[in-house]
């Protein structure tokens, strides 16, 4: 397979085209992904998440620079939201990473969520595999600006950075579930702003009150100041990379890496099962008109959705 060979040799065009085929759900993409799969699993995957405007893209840009200083090749998947009204999207993360456009070892690819709700797009999992097969040492996945719940990133990344900014709520806010639980490293970005020390104290308080066993990883907090002071900014980003390296060693040493890899694989298998079993059944029901007939019956209260589903399941399950 021509394009598969090219991708394994690092060909950007072939890789981007395959990612496009995955996004557009073109049938030929499946066999290419299958051929690439044996070459995946070797990259270190970093997730970066946080609310809109927290500074994820600017940090990603600086992370790329720092990783390049250490001679690592980098792939980036930057996700932005699709408009629920028009189906279009403004993919504006790349605009913060322009200085790397001509570095042949850096590949930045923007993706739109296309209706997916967990902070990523359905294509991200397979797009990661494409970047892995290209031989990228590090892959950074930047989610959309998220709220409290969109945590799909934990199914894809080995280490997750949660980016917070001062002034976004008090200590009750820091206690709440969701993104606060998924961080392997916290970054307090724009830490030159007022409220930064307060946020740091609240985070420390939250981390201190969490039950922990000896040998557990305690997420460090990196305070990153003004991005417009490049020297200190770069220093802080170097510190961030240091923490990521420490986390990587912790994952390897504690066996947690295997847990994360396992979790990712289970999610991928589940997604593939859904795509291969559930979706074709629903499509069949739609195309034959049966779904509409059943909907009418349910509307007239002659049937209920649960019995309908049970009936159909009996047809397909032994």
């Amino acid at each position, binding site marked *: 397979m021509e394009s598969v060979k090219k991708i394994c040799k690092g060909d950007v*065009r072939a890789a981007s085209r395959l990612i496009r085929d995955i996004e557009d759900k073109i049938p030929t993409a499946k066999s290419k992904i299958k051929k690439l799969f044996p070459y995946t699993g070797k990259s270190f995957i970093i997730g970066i998440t946080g609310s809109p405007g927290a500074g994820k893209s600017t940090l990603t840009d600086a992370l790329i620079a720092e990783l390049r200083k250490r001679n690592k090749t980098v792939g980036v998947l930057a996700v932005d939201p699709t408009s629920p009204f028009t189906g279009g999207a403004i993919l504006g993360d*790349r*605009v913060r990473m322009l200085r790397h456009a001509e570095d042949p070892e850096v590949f*930045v690819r923007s993706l739109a969520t296309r209706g997916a709700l967990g902070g990523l797009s359905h294509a991200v999992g397979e797009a990661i595999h494409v970047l892995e097969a290209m031989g990228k040492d590090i892959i950074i996945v930047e989610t959309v600006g998220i709220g409290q719940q969109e945590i799909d990133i934990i199914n894809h990344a080995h280490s997750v950075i949660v980016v917070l900014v001062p002034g976004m709520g008090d200590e009750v806010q820091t206690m709440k579930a969701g993104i606060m639980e998924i961080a392997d490293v916290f970054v307090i970005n724009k830490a030159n702003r007022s409220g930064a020390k307060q946020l740091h104290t609240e985070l420390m308080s939250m981390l201190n009150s969490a039950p922990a066993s000896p040998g557990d990883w305690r997420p460090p907090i990196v305070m990153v100041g003004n991005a417009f002071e490049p020297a200190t900014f770069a220093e802080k980003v170097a510190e961030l990379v240091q923490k990521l390296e420490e986390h990587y060693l912790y994952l390897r040493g504690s066996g947690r890496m295997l847990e994360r890899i396992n979790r990712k694989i289970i999610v991928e298998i589940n997604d593939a099962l859904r795509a291969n079993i559930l979706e074709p059944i629903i499509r069949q029901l739609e195309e034959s008109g049966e779904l509409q007939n059943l909907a009418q019956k349910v509307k007239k209260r002659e049937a209920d959705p649960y019995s309908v589903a049970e009936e159909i399941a009996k047809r397909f399950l032994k």
Partner: protein
Amino acid sequence: MPQRKIRVMVAKPGLDGHDRGARVLTRCFRDAGFEVIYTGCHQTAEQIAAAAIQEDVDLVGLSCLSGAHRALFPRVVELLREKDAADITVIGGGIIPEQDFQALYDAGIKAIFTPGATLDSIVDWIRTNIKPRA
């Protein structure tokens, strides 16, 4: 056959910092259902071509109001050709005198939209002329 989304890049080559038109177009393209990669101002032709290939766009829209279009627009087309990506369509807009149109067409720019062109006409042109590969 699944329907592909049209992917467009809006870029401003050179030193021109007047980006309001480019931003208006970016929003307009999102509203038309396209995925738009907005790369902002102060791009070199090299950066634009590299980004267009990384993003697998169908179309690059170049905006220039400072008169550098004769130098920069053809350079983007040339670079895409060199990198085996001649199938990416390049169009231009901004402050471009009519007497420059032919030279740009000859250099491979497929359409030019100057002040007065309606947003609808631009979207229609794209819908008619840009077919993402099958």
